C-alpha cells in the first residue's frame, strides 16, 4: 500500500464523518433528507475508493447501486410520500435533546467508536483501520438520531443512516460480500422504505401527527 493511497483513505473517511455530522446538525425533515443524500454520495465515492484500493470489481457495482438507490430513489420516494403531509409534521420541533447538546453528544459518540475500534485487532489492513471506526460512528450517530427524535418521519432518516453505517461495516470487514447478497440488501432497504412510508401515511391520517408519543393514545386504559 502506497502512502498516498492511505492518505486518500484517511481524508475520505474524515469527509464521510463530516457528511454524517450533517444529518445531526440540521433541523427539519427536508434538511435531513438532503444531508442524507449528500452522505450517500460521499459513501458511494468512498466505496469506489475502497474498490480501487482492494481491486475487487464487484465493489464498483455496489458503489453504483449506492449512488442510484440511496441518493436518488430513496429521497425521491420519501419526498413523494411526504408531499401530502402537512408542514408541521415535517419539522421536528422538539427533539428530546436540544441541537447543541446532541452535537456534543455525537462528538463523544464518534470518540467512543474510535476507542471501541481500537479494541478490534485488525491493524494490519489499512482499509479496516481507517473505515471501521467511521462505520461504527455512522451506526452510533444514526442510532442517536433515531432515539432522539419524536416524529416517525425523522426516525426513518436515522434508520437510513444506521443502514449506511452497516453497509460500510460489512464492506470494510469482508471487502465486499458477494454481489447477490449486496443486491438483496439494497432491494430490502427499498421495500423497507416503501413500507415505512405507507405506515407513515396511515399514521398521519389516523392521528394527524407523526409524533410517536401519540401512538400511546391507542391504549384504552
Amino acid at each position, binding site marked *: 500500500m502506497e*502512502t*498516498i493511497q*492511505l*492518505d*486518500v483513505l*484517511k*481524508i475520505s*473517511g*474524515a*469527509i464521510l*464523518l*463530516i457528511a454524517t*455530522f450533517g444529518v445531526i*446538525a440540521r433541523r427539519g425533515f427536508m434538511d435531513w433528507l438532503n444531508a442524507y443524500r449528500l452522505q450517500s454520495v460521499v459513501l458511494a465515492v468512498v466505496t469506489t475508493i475502497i474498490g480501487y484500493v482492494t481491486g475487487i470489481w464487484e465493489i464498483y457495482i455496489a458503489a453504483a447501486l449506492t449512488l442510484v438507490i440511496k441518493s436518488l430513489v430513496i429521497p425521491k420516494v420519501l419526498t413523494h410520500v411526504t408531499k401530502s403531509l402537512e408542514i408541521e409534521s415535517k419539522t421536528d420541533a422538539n427533539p428530546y435533546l*436540544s*441541537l*447543541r*447538546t446532541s*452535537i*456534543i453528544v*455525537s*462528538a*463523544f459518540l*464518534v*470518540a467512543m467508536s*474510535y*476507542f471501541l475500534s*481500537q479494541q478490534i485487532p485488525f491493524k494490519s489492513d489499512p482499509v479496516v483501520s481507517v473505515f471501521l*471506526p467511521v462505520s461504527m460512528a455512522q451506526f452510533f450517530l444514526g442510532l442517536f438520531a433515531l432515539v432522539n427524535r419524536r416524529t416517525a418521519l425523522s426516525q426513518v432518516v436515522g434508520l437510513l443512516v444506521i443502514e449506511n453505517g452497516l453497509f460500510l461495516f460489512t464492506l470494510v470487514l469482508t471487502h465486499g460480500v458477494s454481489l447477490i447478497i449486496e443486491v438483496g440488501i439494497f432491494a430490502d432497504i427499498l421495500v423497507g422504505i416503501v413500507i415505512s412510508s405507507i405506515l407513515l401515511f396511515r399514521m398521519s391520517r389516523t392521528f394527524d401527527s407523526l409524533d410517536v408519543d401519540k401512538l400511546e393514545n391507542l391504549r384504552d386504559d
Partner: protein
Amino acid sequence: MSNSLEIVIGVIQVLVLMALSPLMTGIMRKTKARTQKRMGASIFQPYYDMAKLMRKDEVVSDQSSWIFRCTPWVNFVAIGTAAFFIPVFLSHSPFGLVGDLLLIVGLFGLARFFTMLAGLDTSSTFGGIGSSREMMISTLLEPALFLAIFVVALTYGGTNLSTIIETASNSSLLPHPQLIFAAIAMFVIILGETGRLPFGNHATHLELTMVHEAMVLEYSGKSLALIEWSQSIKQIMLFALIANIFVPWGISSSISVSTLGFGLVTFIIKISAFAVFVAFLESSIAKWRLFRVPDLIAVAIASSLVGLVLYYL
C-alpha cells in the same frame, strides 16, 4: 545582517496588514452589495470613511470615565501587537520568539474586555445589551478556539506560529485529516470573532442585530476611526491565520525579493478570495436568533473534539 533584515520584513508585514485591512472590509461590503443587486460603494470607501472620521471632532459623554477614553487605544495597541506575530508572506516571523498563538488569543481577549467595559461605562442601554451579548458569545467562542488551536498545534508540533506555518508549508494536508475538522471549527470561530452574519450584522444599527456596534455606539470622530480600524485589522489577522495555516501555498520561506513578492501577491489573492467567500456566505444566510448562536459554536467544539480524536487514534 539577515537578522535585522528579518526584523525589517516583520515590521513591513505588520504595516501591510494594517494598510490592507480596510480594503478587505471594502471588498466584503462591495461583494455583499453586488449579491443584493446594488452597485455598492467603492472598495476604497473604508479608507475615505476613516480619513473623514479622523478630521471630525469627538463628543464624549460627561458621565463616562477614563475607561471610555482609553479603550480605543487599548484596542488598537493590543490588536496591533498581536499583528506582529502573524506571518503574512514570510513563513517565520522574527517576533515569533516572543509570542505564540495563545498570546494572540490573549491580546484579542484584552481588547474585547476593554470594549465591553467601554460599552458598560457610558451606561447607555445599547452599550449594556452589546456587552452582555458579547460576553455570552465570547465565553463560548474561546474554548472552541482553544480546542481548534490544540488540534493545529498538536499536528504541527507547537503553538508557535512560525513553527506551525513553516511545517504546514512543507507538508501536505492529506495525511492530516484532523485539520479539516480544525478548519471547520476555525471558520465558525472566525465568523463569530469578527461578528459576521449568523452571529451579528455589521451593516445595520438595529437593536436586535447589533453586538459589536452596540458597544461602540457612543464613540465618534477619531476614537470611532481607531476602533473600526482595529476591528478590521483583527478581521484581516484572523483571515491571514486561517489562510496561512490551512492553505499555506505560496508563502515565502526565504528572504529574497522574488519569493517575497510572490508571497505577498498570493497572500492578497488568498485573503481576498476568502473575504469574497465569507461575504457570499453572509448574503445567503440570515441572522440567527441570539440563543441559537450556541448551536453553531457547539458545531465548532464538536468538530475540534473529533479532530483531536482523529489525531490521537
